[in-house]
């Protein structure tokens, strides 16, 4: 048994902690597979329509706020880095470093959401919210609105996932770490959150070019 601020014992169905940690990670990987298929379906249908209505989609995509998307991709990539640093710190038992890197991660995540919210506001003023106040711009008919449906569904679902991610990081900070349940011998929960975080990050790596870059030149 590891000697630490608190002795952690494995749950009944596991032989030892390392088996429990491995299993948790495998679980997250499997979950990520399903999430990939979930977003993959969306991106796939998006490209079907994009090819079918390449012209209308190109016109519509010009109204997407490029700088917001680009700033956000920078933020998310950085946040993945801080997440990895936090996990490294956990493995080495550098508790303070771990806490600070996690705070940085959560802050970057919130920063992303803030920018996204601002962008949604710009979009609203630009009258590109389907149904609510959509205005068909010249050259977009009839499929321009579809682009914006994909935009809202895609970025909206991503934002929900990121919010959950921030929540998980805060849960780690305010509950698991505070109670001393993350130790150099057993930090699998943190690794699992890290996996999820990188996944959400990766989704944006696909959404961003699809929405903001294709056909922009």
């Amino acid at each position, binding site marked *: 048994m590891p000697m630490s601020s608190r002795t952690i014992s494995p749950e009944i169905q596991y032989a030892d902690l390392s088996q429990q940690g491995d299993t948790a990670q495998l679980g997250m990987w499997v979950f990520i597979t399903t999430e990939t298929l979930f977003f993959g379906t969306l991106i796939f249908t998006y490209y079907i329509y994009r090819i079918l209505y390449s012209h209308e989609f190109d016109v519509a995509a010009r109204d997407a706020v490029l700088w917001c998307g680009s700033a956000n991709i920078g933020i998310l990539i950085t946040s993945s880095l801080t997440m990895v640093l936090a996990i490294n710190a956990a493995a080495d038992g550098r508790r303070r470093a771990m806490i600070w890197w996690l705070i940085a991660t959560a802050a970057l995540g919130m920063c992303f959401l803030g920018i996204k919210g601002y962008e949604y506001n710009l979009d609203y003023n630009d009258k590109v919210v389907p149904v609510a106040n959509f205005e068909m711009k010249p050259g977009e*008919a*009839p499929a321009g609105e579809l682009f914006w449906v994909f935009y809202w569904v895609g970025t909206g679902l991503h934002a929900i996932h990121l919010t959950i991610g921030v929540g998980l990081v805060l849960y780690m900070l305010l509950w698991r770490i505070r109670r001393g349940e993350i130790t150099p011998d057993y930090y699998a929960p943190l690794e699992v959150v890290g996996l999820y975080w990188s996944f959400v990050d990766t989704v944006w790596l696909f959404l961003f070019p699809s929405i903001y870059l294709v056909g922009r030149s």
Partner: protein
Amino acid sequence: MDQYHWVPFWPRTAALNAVVVNNLYIAELGLCGLIIAMVVGMMMTFCVRYRQGSTVSRADRVKKTWHWEITWTTATLVAFLVLFCWGASIYIWLFKTPPGDIEIYVVAKQWMWKFQHPGGQREIDTLHVPVDKTIRLVMASQDVIHSFFVPAFRVKRDVVSGTYETIWFKATKTGTYQIECSQFCGVQHATMKGYVVVMTPADYAAWLTSHGIRESLALQGEALFRQYGCSGCHGANSTVHAPTLVGLYGSIVHLQNGGAVRADERYIHDKILMPNEQIPAGYPSNVMPSFAGQISEDNILKLVAYIQSIGSQEFSR
């Protein structure tokens, strides 16, 4: 009326296609029967012979080899693949629509079938056709997806909203046959029925004249062509850089994006509703407006008939 075959479990057979499908179906039933007999036979024999308490020796059980599985599976599979090829060839023959002797436009809507004959005759829920002629149906839906189904002909095709579907048949026996709608389309889906009346050519001709007082579809289409302003761009002395539609029908159109399509009903239909989807090479996009929501499917059919008619003029020249 005499709707059904004299055998209570066999539908009537009244078209070229129906005969072919029947043969295939009987072959399949035969093969399935054989396989089931084999499985049941083996099961029954084993169950009786090797029931608990029977004194038969259980020694020397078949050793696991792949031979059994492979032999049995390949044998049945090969038999089935023959049937697959048979089925696929009929399907290809059926869905590669040949040019019909008579082309009839069908508009499906909740819950009726509207038919328009080339001569302009219209009817609802009843379709008169001559026997032994290839009838080609060009079908559009005004609302949801329907499906045109004549059991006695063994033909069926979904009528999908927003596009054209075609199907053909060649009736071989005069009589009246039921049309069913086989795709769920709302409360009265079950009553969306009709009849195909197959007549001798003479009767058909008589029927046409007695109903043929209207002007032909193409003529009605020509009027609409002017009414909707198509002629302003596509007419002979228009100044807009728009392609002439004379001779368009049936030709191959080269597209701006490098592809090519045949200018069939579906192409023209889509052109009217979504002009920017496929742009012919050498023409500007975004000039032709979309008429989505402004022209009913009935009227689009008339326009198509008109464009088709000026296409054939070109051929005859």
